[in-house]
């Protein structure tokens, strides 16, 4: 089968590789009908994620048709159409039992590596380095899905791939970001990052009752999408004005009640601190750039919430811990516990409350994945979200 393989920093090749097979009796094999490129895939592309091997298949947002099931899979049959959550989760450990699926204690086959870096291991992920399990990803014609009796969601008739594909990752991620803000009536929410996750965080914040949702980015086309399609009430282009001042203005000096970081480790800035972060990275003294994070902490009102759904991998420098502590800010974060959002969000899609396909700007073939990554990275051609099919 063909698969998009990581061959080195900024080197991807769509290669012919063996087809997947059943390895555990709870597996299913999916013929992938649609898959997408995620912003966090770019961290792998740019060489920021350690423990990658040449030949690793990328991709963790995918859906398709069941073509084979292991002997212990009773809930799925050949022919079923399913969306697959990006974390692999067993459903039986203490974490899964508490609905903390991205913290599954069993699914990371290389838990020892993550434990060295982080103290304890999170769940294994599809297509996201050996530290997180060494699972082949879904940017391919077929994919092997472990714990198929726990993860995959059956898709009802009448919904297209484009309407449900993002249940695999970015829609629940944006939603969890908004949910962690514990939105109360009258709340003002600020969202850093208008990539697809940011768009869904904005839309979710509206769904959850926010009074105002402020979108922050530097690309006018993304800010436009946030205002016109996601429901942002205000937009801020940080290259044209001061974010902190504008946020104060929009909140009568209080600051937003909650701030969502939908940017993560490869944040971009334009001040001295950005140059500082890039220099430290080049000297290997810092692995992640917390630019959006710092700004969000400064902007947030006292007693507010910082909701971090942007991906971080390693260590940051110059973190305003004093501000966080003295302003009594609650920090909530984590990889998305996709499994617990699948049904509620599918319901909302079926009821017409949200159509996630609005973020799709490019529909390409799997073979075009390498050039699509470049386009997505450089935000060329008004690129917001790329969907691939084989």
């Amino acid at each position: 089968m063909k698969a998009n393989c990581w061959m080195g920093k900024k080197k991807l090749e769509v290669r012919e590789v063996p087809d997947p097979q059943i390895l555990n009796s709870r597996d299913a094999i999916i013929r992938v009908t649609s898959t997408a490129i995620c912003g966090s895939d770019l961290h792998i592309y740019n060489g920021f994620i350690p423990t990658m091997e040449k030949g690793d298949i990328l991709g963790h947002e995918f859906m398709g048709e069941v073509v084979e099931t292991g002997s212990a899979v009773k809930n799925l049959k050949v022919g079923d159409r399913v969306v697959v959550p990006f974390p692999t989760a067993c459903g039986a450990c203490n974490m899964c039992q508490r609905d903390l699926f991205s913290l599954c204690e069993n699914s990371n086959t290389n838990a020892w590596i993550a434990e060295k870096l982080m103290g304890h291991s999170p769940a294994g992920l599809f297509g996201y380095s050996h530290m997180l399990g060494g699972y082949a990803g879904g940017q391919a014609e077929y994919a092997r899905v472990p714990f198929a009796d726990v993860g995959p969601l059956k898709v009802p008739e009448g919904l297209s791939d484009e309407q449900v594909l993002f249940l695999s990752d970015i829609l629940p991620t944006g939603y969890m970001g908004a949910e962690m803000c514990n939105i109360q009536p009258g709340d003002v929410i600020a969202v850093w990052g208008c990539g697809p996750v940011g768009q869904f965080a904005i839309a979710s914040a509206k769904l959850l009752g926010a009074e105002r949702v402020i979108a922050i980015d530097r690309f006018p086309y993304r800010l436009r999408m946030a205002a016109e399609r996601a429901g942002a009430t205000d937009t801020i282009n940080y290259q044209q004005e001061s974010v902190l001042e504008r946020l104060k203005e929009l909140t009568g000096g209080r600051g937003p009640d909650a701030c969502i970081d939908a940017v993560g480790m490869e944040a971009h800035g334009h001040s001295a601190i950005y140059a500082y972060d890039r220099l430290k990275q080049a000297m290997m003294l810092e692995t992640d750039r917390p630019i959006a994070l710092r700004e969000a902490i400064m902007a947030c009102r006292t007693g507010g919430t910082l909701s971090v759904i942007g991906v971080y991998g390693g260590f940051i420098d110059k973190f305003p811990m004093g501000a966080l502590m003295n302003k009594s800010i609650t920090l909530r974060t984590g990889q998305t516990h996709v499994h617990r959002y699948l049904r509620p969000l599918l319901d909302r899609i079926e009821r017409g409350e949200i159509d996630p396909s609005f973020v799709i700007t490019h529909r390409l073939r799997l073979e075009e994945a390498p050039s699509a990554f470049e386009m997505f990275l450089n935000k060329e051609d008004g690129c917001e979200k790329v969907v691939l099919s084989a």
Partner: protein
Amino acid sequence: MVTTAIERDMWMGRRWDDRTSSVAESPPGGRSAVERVARGLGWFSIGLGVAEATMPSRMARMIGIEDNDAHRRILLTTGLREIATGVAILAGTRTAGAVWARVGGDMLDLAFLRQARGSSERERGRAAAATAAVLGVTALDAITGQQLSRERGPGVRGIKVNETITIAKPPAQVYEFWRDFRNLPRFMDHLESVEVIDDTRSRWRARAPAGGSVAWDAEIVDDRPHERISWRSVEDADVQNAGSVSFRPAPGGRGTEIHVDFRYDPPAGKLGAAVATLFGEEPGHSVKSDLRRLKQVLETGDVVRSDASIHSGMHSAQPSGNAKSRGATR
């Protein structure tokens, strides 16, 4: 690095408002008197090394050897060696070994002093004093090294392993699974088989890396159902080992905490090397991996596999296989 006097005193464990006290509180975890002497030697090494490396001329004259190019070079190298040894001692992981390294260095110093001492009476006098000083330090190093080795416990080669994991199943179930030793190879990677001989005895066979296997007999010395199993290898075992596994209820309904606690002596000779690689540099790592697999078997039904993990050694995260092609999707 510490800068102010207050910070320095806090660093050294004294209360900051009690700098006049001559008793230094030991840092958390406590250090024995011997370890404190060893640390003193470490600092001494660094100080001496810095002096030798930065002021070789002055050092040469002080210890009564001729101040020439060759001697200065030797002093520089010696200084660097001293610094390295000092750092090794203070880094703390193989303190005993580093102190013994000092002894080796002392021997070299003595030899150098004898060979390089100058001819004038003044120089001989100084060299004699330096030699006496080195001999004194050598004695201190040797005694300290010996005490440290002894403090580490019986059998310097005995390897102690302590690992724990929580499994979301009741202690009775986990105990029963472990107590049937034939289950163990399902999650203990290096084990080939366990044959139960009678109520207390069993024969264990483990894979050796170069092919073939190592085997030993073990007997249960204490068996508390649902709580604890203690065992010990029988005389003449290829790998002497003894230990216990306990099953405790985890708090708040989380299931069972398993605590594995054992010690083994890697045998000498060709078997020693085989066993060393068997258990790896970090035997704790191997045991922890076994416990993770046990957790997977009990909680999910089977050892969890990924496309990369089914291979030993590095393999890319892609299927490898001889599955027949499923056909192109277009």
